[in-house]
């Protein structure tokens, strides 16, 4: 059952992911991206990472994608005109991607634990939200603070970069 679900979600995620790359219309790409992320969130949930799954949907599908769409609308981007196919880019891209796949395949096949079945969690009652929270606020407190600064900087940056007329 889990395997079936996994395959379904994974396949859809990859298909939508591929769609991002192959669709010409930016809006379709953006929407495919959302869909891909939704199925990614589903995969997270199959891995018992409920909190991350939820966050994924909230942040990506909810915030980031809206942002993307806003920008697409704002810039009034049309369907990309099919320019001449850049054969070099395609060959190069294929070379890089397949090279990479080969390497990853090698790692996957050579490394032992990859055929490992999912081990049962010793105490399924523990809420992963609280566990993640514990880890985040206790152990990873400093990075958390830094991320705060990062967000502040990003905010300033966005203002600096996109305000029409700085006052």
């Amino acid at each position, binding site marked *: 059952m889990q395997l079936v679900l996994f395959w379904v979600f994974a396949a859809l995620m990859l298909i939508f992911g591929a769609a991002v790359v192959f669709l010409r219309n930016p809006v379709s790409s953006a929407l495919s991206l959302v869909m891909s992320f939704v199925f990614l969130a589903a995969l997270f949930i199959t891995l018992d990472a409920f909190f991350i799954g939820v966050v994924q949907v909230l942040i990506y599908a909810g915030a980031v994608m809206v942002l993307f769409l806003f920008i697409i609308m704002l810039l009034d981007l049309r369907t990309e005109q099919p320019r001449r196919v*850049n054969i070099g*880019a395609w060959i*190069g*891209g294929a*070379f*890089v*991607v397949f*090279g*990479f796949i080969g*390497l990853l395949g*090698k*790692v996957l096949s050579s490394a032992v634990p990859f055929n490992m079945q999912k081990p049962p969690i010793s105490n399924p009652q523990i809420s992963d939200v609280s566990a993640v929270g514990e880890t985040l606020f206790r152990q990873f407190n400093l990075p958390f603070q830094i991320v705060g600064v990062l967000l502040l900087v990003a905010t300033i940056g966005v203002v600096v970069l996109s305000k029409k007329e700085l006052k």
Partner: protein
Amino acid sequence: MNAATAPWIILFTPLVSAALILFFGRYSRKLSAGLAIGGALLACALSWWLFFQPGEVGPNQLLWINVPDVLTVPLGMTIDPLSRTMLVVVNTIASLVFIYSLGYMAGEEGYWRYFGGLALFLFSMLGIVLANNFVMMFIFWELVGLSSYILIGHYYSRPSAADACKQAFIVNRLGDFGFMIGILTLWFATGSVVFGEIFAKVPLLESQGHYLTIACLLIFCGTIGKSAQLPLHVWLPNSMEGPTPVSSLLHAATMVAAGVYMLARVFPLLVAAPIARDFIAWVGALTCLAAGLMATQQNDIKRILAYSTISQLGYMVLGAGVAPGPDVPMFHLFTHAFFKCLLFLCAGSVIVALHHEQDIWHMGGLKSKTPITFACLVVGTLALSGFPGFSGYYSKDLIIAWAVIEKPILGWIAVLTAGLTAFYMFRLLAVVFLGTPRSDHARHARESPAVMVVPLILLAIPAWVAGYAPVEGFFFHLKEPEHVPEILHYALLAMFVLGAGLAILLYRNPAKDPVVIPLFANRFYIDDLYNWIVKNVQDSLASLGGWADRWVVDLFVAQIPSRFTWACGYILRFLQLGNIQAYAFFFGAGVVGLIYILLA
């Protein structure tokens, strides 16, 4: 002053004169001449004084270079009969020539240069005479070359003089090349450069096969260059571009004889190397003959004498090759110095009388116009031709006699050359002094001033009498050869009569040379061969080298690497396409490559 310090004063007086002339001579002609002549006279007086000091003079040296245990080069004096005699000869003749120069050079520019050069020459020549070791001798050997260069190039504005002085120096250096190797080989075997110490090790050297022979031959190279032996004789005739007194002093009487003096100095080595001596004798005899042949067809009065000098030097070298002791060639050197100097000064007198005309075919009939010069020239000619009773007769016949005994072929070559000598000298005499004048200058010639004539007369006396037994006994201890074939004396006399008669007959009064032998006139084409080699071999090689330095060496060690680097950079920068996708691709490719290597 004692016998130990005198040679130092003799040696350095001319140097001091030269230095003073260099600094102050420009301001006064009299000062230049005075300094040079004064120095020469002082040296002359001292050498006569030294000549009469009896006995051996002990170690008498300074250390010039001293690297302990490895090399010691002293500046030391050898005072022995050989050097005493030579000192006297050199200084006496030099003094006379210096004085003669006063007249000859009157009115010439570069007075200080001339007298400075003469003083420097005297210094160098005395250094050779006095040296007690090879390196010191080599030093002065080279300095003699320098002074010769300066003096030959006195009329440097004349291209021929400028070329001649250059050639003289370079050819001498060629000889020195071998000389230096010879010194090195001797030092390598004996660990010393001092004559006495090397002679003491002759037995050791003899035991090493041909080592000594080779060393002697290399040393002999110095003589070949300095004494203008075949095949390095070419510079001497050209050196006649210098003022005539220079030719007489350097290129006839003293400097060129240095090579013979050196052979005499190293005689103990030569004695131990018979093969080398044979070679030396052969070179001497061949030079003697060849130069005599060349002399018969020359038209420049000084060149005739120059070839005659070469020929006589050949005799001396032959003497060094065949005689049992160094005194035999030295005796000829001694007499030759006087009569050849005399001849040159006579020639100079003629040249001055004819307003610097040197072609004998523009002369003629001078007998009555310059009688003293004519008389002196006759004395010189007879001495040179070996006419009995004149000095040359004694010294030359001695060498020929030894040669006939030791190496009959060479001996008879020498006899033949004696005839040639008579021929070309009488040719000169006849063309210049007999017959009728062939040019205006010759018609209006007058005898030279006293300052020139007096030295002529003074030199004529030793030229005549220097060979007489008392004089000879005073300076030398000669060993007369035994078992000389009777026929030799008659042969020599016959050769003289034949040569002189033929010359008078042929040249009594022709307008131009009745005998034309291009081979002799062109000096066996040896000069042309050298010119060809210099032009086509050396200069072509040099041009090739110059080309290669730029287009091969520089190309490979500088141009190509730098251009290649630059080109690589130029190409590499085009990877920076400016296109994000390209960058992303390169980035990805880099990642793949990096991981691939990591996992490999």
